């Protein structure tokens, strides 16, 4: 799941002033969260465009409730790369910025296009798009789906259990597994044997009593 942002801003300065300022904007009173800034790649292309890669490190400010969930993450600063193309012939600049760590938690990508304002030559327009995504959405969906699947399986067991006990109570022979049948057969055999022994004992006793009675009669 990706959250999309689209915005437009205007700077009341000409494009060349803005492009020059772009390389000098750190530090400023609003950038206390930016810790370091470095150019790590730069080249002028054959068609006179300037390609640059800037590495920024920023503090990783997150709300308090995340500290318990992601204690390791909070400690480490964020590394951000900003790739840019300055095209002086067309008076445009394009930037693409994204985080290269903490990505398992969240990825934020931003694309900006700077160009001269069509209504006012001495102004600069910035068209800004951003994509915020988190694989944690995937994890929470997986947990939900697992929970639902397990619940459905338990419902099946519940209904089977009900059918089983109802059949038993109503004196029907419920259908059983082979293991259960074998087990019960063994038990039943034991009972039968025991019953037979008892009956035999009983009959023997009865016979003995009758013999005694007959003997007494003859005396």
């Amino acid at each position, binding site marked *: 799941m990706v959250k999309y942002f689209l915005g437009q801003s205007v700077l009341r300065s000409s494009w060349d002033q803005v492009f020059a300022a772009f390389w000098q904007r750190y530090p400023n009173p609003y950038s206390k969260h930016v810790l370091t800034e470095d150019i790590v790649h730069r080249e002028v292309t054959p068609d006179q465009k300037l390609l640059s890669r800037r590495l920024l490190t920023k503090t990783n400010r997150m709300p308090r409730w995340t500290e318990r969930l992601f204690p390791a993450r909070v400690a480490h600063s964020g590394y951000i790369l900003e790739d840019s193309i300055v095209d002086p012939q067309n008076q445009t600049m394009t*930037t693409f910025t994204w985080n290269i760590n903490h990505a398992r938690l969240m990825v934020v990508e931003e694309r900006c296009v700077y160009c001269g304002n069509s209504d006012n030559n001495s102004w600069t327009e910035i068209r800004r798009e951003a994509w915020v995504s988190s694989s944690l959405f995937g994890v929470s969906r997986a947990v939900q789906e697992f929970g639902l699947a397990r619940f459905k399986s338990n419902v099946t067991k519940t209904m089977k259990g009900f059918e089983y006990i109802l059949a038993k109570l109503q004196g029907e022979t419920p259908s059983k597994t082979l293991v259960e049948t074998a087990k019960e057969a063994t038990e039943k055999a034991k009972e039968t044997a025991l019953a037979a022994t008892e009956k035999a004992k009983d009959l023997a006793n009865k016979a003995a009593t009758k013999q005694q009675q007959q003997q007494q009669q003859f005396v």
Partner: protein
Amino acid sequence: MNSIGEACTDMKREYNRCFNHWFAEKFLKGDGSGDPCTDLFKRYQQCVQKAIKEKEIPIEGLEFRGHGKDKPENSS
């Protein structure tokens, strides 16, 4: 603004001074040739790339994405 390598901050400042001048006075005015800052840049880069390796920052092999979100189109 500090460099990620503490030892590189001065080199960065020197390079930036040179770059900012060339960028505003030459490059933006259509004269992109003859970059006078290449030596300063080399010195600065040696320092900062070393610091990046030491801190194990994973910037190795990442494709340039200045063109935007989609696969880079042919720019002409």
